[in-house]
């Protein structure tokens, strides 16, 4: 999978590519409009992550040109502009998703994965992690071929974990993923805890390994490492 990160803030671009590289994507960076335009013209990418305010031009225009050339590329906008008009405009010119800065890298990663899944398999796909199988279209989860009934939030939580395997996830990023940006109360962190407890119990009951580990002071990690 080839990705292009178009972001004028060098440090942020580096963080994003480092994070996505660990997921096995090949990441390239562009820090100006011209550079991004050139790269998009020369190479083909599976997914492009674009900041809207760029030196030398507007990210929206970049997306428009890209859409005309190769319609199959997935596009995610990352912008500090939170205005609804910007979101709508972004989606109108053909972007697939819109993330407002600041965002969690794990959230971006989950969105990228979900986008690639949608693009490549039209949603008719499955995620397999060891004995856990998720049928994304049907929103069904199987452990060792037995169906495990999860609540909506538990399912979302599992998918979020599966998108970020072996990555330390902060409680705040989990809470925001499940309830949206506006969740900021201490209770949400308790809720994260109780959801994780339930998810873990349901998976282990069906015979899955116990993959969720809590990391002191930070959050949780899903995986074997």
């Amino acid at each position: 999978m080839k990705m292009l990160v178009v972001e004028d803030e060098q440090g942020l671009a580096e963080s994003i590519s480092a994070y996505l590289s660990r997921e096995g994507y090949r990441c390239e960076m562009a820090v100006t409009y011209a550079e991004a335009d050139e790269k998009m013209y020369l190479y083909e990418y599976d997914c492009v992550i674009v900041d809207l305010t760029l030196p030398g031009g507007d990210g929206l225009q970049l997306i428009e040109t890209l859409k005309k050339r190769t319609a199959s590329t997935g596009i995610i906008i990352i912008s500090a502009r939170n205005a609804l008009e910007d979101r709508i405009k972004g989606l109108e010119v053909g972007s697939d998703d819109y993330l407002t800065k600041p965002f969690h890298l794990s959230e971006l990663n989950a969105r990228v994965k979900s986008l690639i899944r949608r693009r490549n398999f039209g949603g008719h796909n499955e995620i397999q992690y060891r004995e856990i199988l998720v049928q994304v279209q049907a929103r069904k989860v199987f452990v060792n071929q037995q169906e495990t009934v999860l609540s909506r939030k538990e399912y979302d939580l599992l998918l979020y974990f599966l998108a970020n395997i072996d990555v330390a996830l902060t409680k705040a990023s989990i809470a925001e993923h499940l309830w949206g940006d506006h969740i900021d109360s201490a209770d949400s962190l308790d809720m994260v805890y109780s959801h994780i407890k339930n998810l873990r119990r349901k998976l282990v009951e069906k015979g899955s390994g116990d993959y969720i580990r809590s990391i002191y002071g930070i959050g949780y990690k899903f995986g074997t490492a």
Partner: protein
Amino acid sequence: MRLLEKTNRIYLLFSVILYLATALAFYGIIKWLIYDEVENRLLVEKRDFQLYIQHYGWTANSYFVENKIEVELGRVPAGFQESFKDTLIEDRYTQKLVPFRQLTFYESIKGVEHRVAIRKSMIQSYRLMEAITFTMATVLALLLAGTYWFQDRLSGRIWQPFYETLSRIKQFDLVRGQHLQLDQPDIIEFKELNEVLQKMSDQILHDYLNLKEFTENASHELQTPLALITAKVEELIQSEHLTEKQTRWIQTIYEASLRMSRLYQGLLLLAKIENRQFANEQPINLSDQLLERLWDMEELLQHKGIRLHTAVEAPFWANLPPVLAENLVTNLVSNALRHNVPQGEIRLRSTDSALCLSNTGHPLQNDPNDLFSRFKKQGGSSESVGLGLSIVKEICDNYGLQIRYAEIGGIHEFCITKKKVDE
């Protein structure tokens, strides 16, 4: 009361008083003049009479003009003073009472004391007085009415540029970003007024646009470094070799940056609402939105053991941009949840005129008046940035809604009603 109405009224009152005073003074002066003339005549006649009787003595018929001179026997009473007086005497032919001016004095005719009254008929003088007074009163009244009418029309025309300016200012809307266009009237004061207003409005518009631009730029410029911080922290926590202390530091940095981001977004939102930078107002069923939001928080409700009671008699509709409607209900619900107690309650009550959300909770420690102020946090909870209710209030204020808070027996209730249209 309008300015012209006010000046007209004062003018009218003043001129009526002046008119009455002039009319009275006029009448008085004419009357005095006529009396003076008549009395002088009477004094002259008295001297004529005295000269006459010295030479000829008095016989009853020596002066036949009716009621002209009356001579009777009579002694001078003590303390008598010669005086004029008005009297009425019956006309011999028409039997009408006719006004006379009369001078009474005592004269000795051939050694015998007589009381003498010399009279002059006032009937002609009275008529003259009436005619003059009436003419003057009419002319004055006409003059008065004329001036009043003229002044009314004139000031209406003179003040017209002022009213024009006023109506232009009323139509002036910052959000549209158009400059205020004012005329250049001939009158210097109005011209100056327009120039000053023009300058002021241009400055305001300029500042407004600057501020708007600033909020937009600041949003971008501050969110980006924040994004950088969170991204780097997230990278950092992936490393395996952190000590417990380091983890705690990192966590603090992370939380602080998240809070800062929320804080900034909240302030930005407030500024944008104040500047009315949200378009696309539309009727929104707030009751439905609020219910939806509450159901969204189902897990949290369950987790805290909070019971939800809803009583929607009729939906509450309000006109506002959808983004703000969402913000409004989210903040209300967060507030009701945050300050709730375990095993508490949340009640939603909706009619077509009021939407109320109440929750159980600890008694308020702060002044209820500060509830909607920025950064007034209840119980020092550091989790919230203390902007939620300010945002709610700002949205309500800007979109014709009113929010009220009441506490009854440990139940905190927020009610949204429509502002009465009497602006």
